[in-house]
């Protein structure tokens, strides 16, 4: 054998001659995938293929069962699965292909012991990819065809500032009392008097819709002396004082009065659940038409003010968390510094203990700490501060201790040589070396904490995150957009400021 071939054929690459003939290896691999490879002296390959095909098979059966949960018998389940999710057919075909390919692979392995075919692994990756596609419920079609759905909320989030401005509003309203249910002794309908707006309902009594969908009484409403051409909302006030808007076929009812300020419309009395304590024989419900008009100068809206307030709260949550985090992390960091703690086995044990605890605390996300803190101290900024303090201690403790570990022992030696005391040595040789990195890490942490307190807010830890998640839940994308903008602006400013300060210190 020449030198060249020796180099090419590394001794691990050549297997011992196969124990079985290639066709037999192929058949054996059809019976039990990987068996052919194993008998062809490619033990690990055979085992790997067996485990792979077993896990893929298991995953595939799980997906079938999940797709057709109510069917009995695997044949039925698989048939139904193919029917309900055609993509499963593709996965099944690939699986079958892999099964056959393993037999082909066994044939090749047994035939030529100098070659190691890799085709089977490409098929294997394809099967995993297809399975992942099915498990991840990836649906490119929906993504593309419904992409425009993102438009309206995205537009509101991107430019929410209409919501930042509000105007003083004047309300023009007229109401009519409705007795529920009818008792025979009905209220007199309203009458037109002068130029005041009036709402006349007929009849003045009725029954509400029921939960089962039985429609309530149809009321005929007539409005007089409303502002012409302005949108008029129809609202109810129930006997316990809650005001809600009338909906018809899922939409809020809005009527527009004509040039004389007159409108008429028919509404079906809505369904409304009253508290169990409501046991009176009848109740008076109030229906009213309401027009709102902007008057006076523009001013900042309540939502805008709330966002600003919560933003400030968030910055202070981050600040307080950093403050307490630093106070607690500084002493801890000395115990977590190897160069200070390697003196004796006891201090070394303390070092490992402190390091271990810090690593555990750090590996638990602040959001988890926030959930625990909310359980203890309730919703609000304090819970957020607690969560961030925990995480800050762990993160800063590690960073500080690394700063302590990296101090240069030279100056300590030099200061000692001048006849300085221990305390003087610490102040003149150690402190100047650790203060700049400490300051730098602290500012960086404050930056992180403010960003993180937004996330903490999502689980009730106070601050703007709390507000943001509420706005998103009530689909108020404009207010949510304002919150997003403020977060982005604050984070950007903080990022810049902290980078500047750190650049000056280090």
């Amino acid at each position, binding site marked *: 054998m020449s030198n060249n071939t020796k180099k090419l054929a590394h001794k691990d690459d050549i297997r011992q001659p196969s124990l079985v003939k290639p066709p037999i290896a192929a058949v054996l691999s059809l019976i039990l995938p990987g068996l052919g490879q194993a008998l062809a002296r490619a033990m690990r390959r055979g085992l790997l293929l067996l485990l792979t095909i077993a896990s893929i098979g298991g995953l595939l059966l799980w997906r079938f069962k999940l797709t057709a949960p109510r069917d009995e018998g695997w044949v039925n389940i698989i048939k139904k699965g193919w029917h309900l999710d055609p993509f499963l057919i593709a996965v099944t075909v690939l699986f079958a292909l892999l099964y056959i390919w393993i037999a082909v692979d066994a044939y090749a392995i047994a035939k030529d012991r100098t070659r190691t075919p890799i085709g089977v692994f490409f098929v294997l990756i394809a099967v995993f990819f297809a399975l992942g596609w099915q498990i991840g419920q990836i649906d490119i079609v929906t993504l593309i065809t419904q992409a425009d759905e993102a438009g309206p909320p995205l537009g509101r989030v991107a430019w929410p500032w209409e919501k930042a401005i509000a105007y003083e509003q004047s309300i023009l309203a007229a109401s009519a009392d409705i007795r529920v249910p009818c008792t025979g002794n009905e209220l007199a309908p309203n009458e037109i008097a002068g130029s005041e707006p009036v709402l006349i309902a007929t009849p003045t009594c009725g029954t509400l819709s029921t939960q089962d969908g039985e429609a309530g009484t149809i009321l005929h409403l007539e409005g007089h002396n409303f502002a012409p051409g302005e949108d008029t909302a129809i609202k109810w006030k129930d006997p316990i004082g809650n005001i809600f808007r009338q909906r018809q076929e899922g939409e809020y009812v809005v009527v527009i009065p004509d040039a004389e300020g007159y409108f008429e419309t028919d509404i079906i009395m809505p369904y409304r659940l009253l508290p169990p304590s409501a046991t009176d024989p009848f109740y008076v419900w109030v229906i009213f038409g309401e027009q709102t008009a902007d008057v006076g100068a523009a001013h900042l809206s309540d939502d805008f003010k709330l966002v600003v307030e919560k933003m400030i709260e968030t910055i202070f949550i981050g600040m307080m968390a950093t403050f307490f985090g630093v106070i607690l992390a500084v002493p801890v960091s000395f115990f977590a510094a190897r160069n200070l703690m390697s003196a004796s086995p006891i201090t070394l044990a303390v070092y490992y203990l402190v390091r271990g605890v810090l690593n555990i605390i750090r590996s638990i996300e602040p959001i988890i700490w926030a959930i625990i803190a909310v359980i203890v101290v309730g919703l609000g900024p304090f819970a957020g501060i607690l969560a961030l303090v925990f995480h800050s201690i762990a993160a800063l403790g590690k960073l500080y201790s690394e700063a302590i570990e990296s101090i240069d022992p030279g*100056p300590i*030696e030099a200061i000692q040589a*001048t006849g*300085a005391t221990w305390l003087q040595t610490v102040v*003149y040789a150690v402190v100047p070396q650790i203060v700049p990195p400490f300051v730098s890490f602290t500012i960086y942490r404050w930056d992180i904490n403010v960003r993180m307190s937004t996330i903490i807010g999502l689980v009730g830890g106070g601050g703007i995150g709390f507000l943001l998640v509420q706005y998103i839940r009530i689909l108020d994308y404009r207010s949510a957009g304002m919150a997003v903008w403020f977060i982005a602006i604050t984070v950007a400013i903080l990022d810049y400021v902290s980078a500047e300060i750190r650049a000056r210190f280090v």
Partner: protein
Amino acid sequence: MLEIRNLTKIYDDGTVALKNVSFTVNDGEFLVVIGLSGSGKSTLLRCINRLIDPTEGEIIWNGVDMAQLQGEELRKNRRQIGMIFQHFNLVRRSTVLTNVLAGRLGYTPQRNSLLGRFSENDKQKAWTALRRLGIEDQAHKLARELSGGQQQRVGVARALMQEPLMILADEPVASLDPVLAHSILQYLEALNQEDGMTVLCSLHYLDLVQQYSTRVIGLRDGEIVYHGSRADIRAMTDEEFKDIYGEEAVRVSAGLEGNLNDNAEGAA
């Protein structure tokens, strides 16, 4: 006068750094210690001012055994001995002035020094030292902003602040280029000749040793293997030097480095 008697240092890991070393340094001498890295030079110098605690032996400094001293007494004797380091050992993030003033810590009441308060007298001394070493205009820069040669001058100025009777210099020029090496050693020579300070210095380069030393001891593997007077060292051949140093010996000649074999007759 410094008298070392039977000094032995064994580190915790079992390394024997010094074996039964004895010698005397008379006041006003410029004693140079030569030897390869790892031969025990640094350990020897650090044992003298007790940055390292010796395992055995006596270090008689003006009648006091430094090896036995603790606490206050140790510090009082330490401040009479200035030290200069190979890597300067300045606090790189402090100003030059603060670094120099730190040399005065042994004389400053702890309370004042913690607040950074030094007496007017000390400040005058610091400026005098800076002026003497020609780095007065660098006083308010951070130590790390200075070049290597300037940093070592700050190191010398810091040692001067102690008004020492003796200066220990642990390879003071090993991190500097040859021109700067001469410059720093000339400062030490001036302190030795004009101010009468004893200098105990470890050096690597034969021609520097020949030019500045009044006496030389050679260390190898923690033992003294050579003892020479000024005349001996001037007459020392490269072969004898190589005996102590082995084949790695290097001569610095007129600001150029070269192997002894290429440069056997290099000017001193």
